[in-house]
């Protein structure tokens, strides 16, 4: 029930935020922040009360009670669809990440949304609710539902409050994800049908569908359906082209959520569904996936280097970083998977922060074009320092979370394919190239005298506090990632046992 409440709080909170606009223009953002924080505290409160957290056991596919939380209620018995939510270490991490970044997103949009604030915050909260659903749903029908539905408020966020080319970006985002989602729907239904013909039961439950016996070709096709849906979201070369547009055009909070959380649903889907449901097929396919991952790492980095738009550069860097996740997942050993999970968390923070900086710059300069920036450190040293922190985080400085992630991925990958590792490792070099270029073009260099007229205001208390949360998180992950690793370990262990 805790999990249902988590989602409900956000849904109802969204309605409240929408309504609160009538009281006062500034009310919605306060309500939204309050709702997210309450949700987070509610979740933490329950987690702390759980004795299981100290002694994590591997969540067994055969026995939902071994999971940290499990909830099941009938929904559409005619189809064998139920409201089945469950939480294990990885989903718990993702839920925490979602809520923390949700609060960050509200903070990021504190001042830059000026119209229809109530509806804005409502959409924000509903998106978060959808994402939570994705991370917790273990009924494939329900999962698909959340998967699709979370896009609608996100679509509104981009289409209504986005930047100059928002219509195009929102449309592209929606069509890419929906079209790939349809493939997944076909896959899900086929899987259910196959399971039905084997067991005579209609069920969409993850627990029931694991270990469904099926022909090799069938498994291959079904796996591809899932795979495409997830890698489009991740996104992986060559399905990534919606991302630069969507991230660039979205309002700051939208970018934060998109990059910080939404992309992770793809990675989560791969780990939770695409591989365990079709272990043999996934392993047969792993080489292709890894090639795509490595290509994404390099391609994203090269394109990031070419960008002049601040947000677009970060967007391409996400493509590059998510390539590591794909590599990590399909290397399919503990090291690489831990790296992938770590990357999901760390990238969530580092990119969210960078997007928030981008948003702050856009708010102040009314441009994202780095050719019109330069020397901003001079005007806004605090923002510059913060930007520097997250830039070096994103280029994988040891001691910060992203390094742990990339190192583990590559280390795990090396066991599987040294040459692929070498190619992916190029991402470390190219990553440095674009990250530092970003810094150079915006904050360093000669101060642009035109900028002085904008009356640039440095980061204030709210922004610094938000940033500090993420900095502390990244440093924590960097020097003592063990809590995260420990949470994921039992899950990964039981997942690894699924494959031959």
């Amino acid at each position, binding site marked *: 029930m805790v999990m249902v409440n988590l989602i409900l709080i956000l849904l109802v909170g969204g309605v409240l935020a929408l309504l609160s606009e009538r009281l006062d223009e500034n009310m919605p953002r306060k309500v939204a922040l309050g709702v997210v924080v309450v949700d987070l505290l509610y979740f933490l409160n329950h987690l702390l009360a759980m004795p299981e957290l100290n002694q994590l056991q591997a969540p067994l596919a055969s026995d939902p009670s071994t999971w940290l939380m499990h909830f099941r209620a009938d929904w*559409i018995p005619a189809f064998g669809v139920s409201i089945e939510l469950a939480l294990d270490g990885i989903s718990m991490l993702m839920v925490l990440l979602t809520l923390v970044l949700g609060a960050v997103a509200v903070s990021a949009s504190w001042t830059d949304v*000026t*119209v229809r604030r109530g509806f804005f915050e409502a959409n924000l909260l509903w998106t978060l609710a959808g994402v939570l659903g994705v991370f917790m749903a273990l009924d494939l029908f329900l999962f*698909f*539902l959340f998967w699709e539905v979370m896009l609608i408020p996100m679509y*509104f966020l981009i289409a209504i409050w986005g930047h100059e080319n928002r219509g195009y970006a929102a449309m592209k985002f*929606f*069509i890419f994800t929906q079209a790939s989602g349809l493939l997944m729907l076909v896959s899900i*239904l086929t899987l*259910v049908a196959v399971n039905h013909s084997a067991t005579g039961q209609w069920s969409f439950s993850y627990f029931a569908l694991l270990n469904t016996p099926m022909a090799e070709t069938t498994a291959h096709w079904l796996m591809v359906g899932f795979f495409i849906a997830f890698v489009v979201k991740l996104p992986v070369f060559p399905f990534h082209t919606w991302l630069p547009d969507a991230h660039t055009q979205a309002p700051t909070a939208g970018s934060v959520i998109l990059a910080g959380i939404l992309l992770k649903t793809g990675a989560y889907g791969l780990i939770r569904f695409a591989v365990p449901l079709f272990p043999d097929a996934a392993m047969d396919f792993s080489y292709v996936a890894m090639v795509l991952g490595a290509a994404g790492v390099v391609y994203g980095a090269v394109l990031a280097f070419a960008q002049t738009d601040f947000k677009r550069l970060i967007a391409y860097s996400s493509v590059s970083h998510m390539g590591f996740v794909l590599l990590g997942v399909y290397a399919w050993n503990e090291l690489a998977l831990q790296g992938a999970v770590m990357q999901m968390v760390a990238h969530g923070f580092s990119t969210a922060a960078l997007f928030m900086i981008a948003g702050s710059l856009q708010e102040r300069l009314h441009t994202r074009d780095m050719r019109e920036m330069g020397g901003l450190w001079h005007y806004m040293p605090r923002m510059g320092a913060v930007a520097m922190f997250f830039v070096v985080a994103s280029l994988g400085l040891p001691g910060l979370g992203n390094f742990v992630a990339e190192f583990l991925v590559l280390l795990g990958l090396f066991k599987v394919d040294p040459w692929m590792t070498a190619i992916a490792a190029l991402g470390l070099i190219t990553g440095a190239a674009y990250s530092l270029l970003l810094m150079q073009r915006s904050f360093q260099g000669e101060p642009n005298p035109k900028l002085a007229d904008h009356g640039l205001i440095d980061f204030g208390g709210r922004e610094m506090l938000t940033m500090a949360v993420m900095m502390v998180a990244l440093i924590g992950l960097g020097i003592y990632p063990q809590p995260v690793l420990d949470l994921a370990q039992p899950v990964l262990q039981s997942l690894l046992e699924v494959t031959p």
Partner: protein
Amino acid sequence: MNANSLMALMPILMLSLTAVVLMIQASIKRDQSVAWFISALGFLLTLWGAGYAREFTQPVTVLLIVDDWGLFFTTLIVAAALVTLILSRDTFSTEGERKEEYYLLLVLSVLGAVVLIQSSHMVSLLLGMELMGVALYAMIAFPEKGQLPLEASIKYLVLSACASAMLLYGFALLYAATGDLSYGGIGLKAMLAYQQNPILLMSGTAMVLAGIGFKLSVVPFHMWTPDVYEGAPTPVTGFLATISKGAVFVALTRFFVEGQLYEYQSLMTALAAVAIASMLIGNWLALRQENIKRLLAYSSIAHFGYLLVVLIALSHEGAEAGLIRQAITFYLAAYILTTLAAFAVVACIAGEDESKNQIAAFDGLFWRRRIQASSLTVAMLSFAGIPLTAGFVGKFYVISVGIQSQLWWLLAALVIGSAIAIYYYLRIIFTMTKSAGTAASGQFRASTASQDVLAMLLLIMVLLLGSWPQPFIEFAGRL
């Protein structure tokens, strides 16, 4: 024919009664609002009649079959007619003389649809279809001014008559081949006839399908659709899109199942070709359409393409007839509800002003007419098959059925078509959400309370059917 049979015919009788009363009323005193009330009362009585008739389900002569399934669709269609009635009131109150005749036509057309739904014989099919059609011609051409309604009406008349001729000729060939005109009779004798003279049987069936395909506006019999949708008064368009098409599809299903057409592989190939073409071409046509009524016309082409998949699925050995029937029921119900929601909003916002049917005219609707805009948004999402809406569950059924029957090519077309469709459905939503910051850019007609309530009601039903379909599924399963 006995008393029981009469009870079973209660809906038809009620509608006929309404028609008679309307005629008498018109001869006594022409009054639009009285006519409106009589029609409304008639429809309500028909609804009651449909419930009443459930106790007496039986075949009534060889012509009609009264069963739960048909009664359900009768109910649905009469309810849709009620919605049309509500929408018509605002639309036609501005018309000049003899507007009460419109209600008579409406009632007659619904009567035709109900007969069509319950038909089990070529003659009742023809009667129902023609009664519905002829009344529709007049309804489409009802506005006294403007060329568009007239153009639409004459096009519909000629093309529809041509299609009827095809249908009739097809039945003539079937009759020549089998010596029977009832669906069941054709089904029983067809196999033998096939073995003797397949050409007669197959070309006859193909012609019947062509005639019915016209009414369903599947490719390549679709070309009339956008013109008629655009030209007709919006409530009539809504009627055409929901009641007419729905009833014809029900009739097609009966003919298809009773006639055991799914046994013939070549027919299925032909039907599959039509379905694939409809799914793709319908969506392609809608892609950049600027007129919302034409857009909905094209989208309906695609939707009947999806529905055909379900029928074709019957041909596979592994198909479960029950599931397929459920799928048809659900999809049609969802489609009718969603279409009504969409046309309710279009009728309310655009009225009969041709220029306001442009999508661009909906700019900023989201901020000016919340309820109407929400309703249209949900309708578009439902058409697009986004979860939590009725359309999704419908699509869910179609895909499930397709998978069970392993119709991979059709599924591929469905996926591609749906992917294309997202674009134009979303474009409408996007247009409505534009101009968030600016003051009123477009002038929208004020909506009346009844329109708002109607929009709200349809919105809730579409969502309810999508998010909590279990009761309805159980209900549909028992039909």
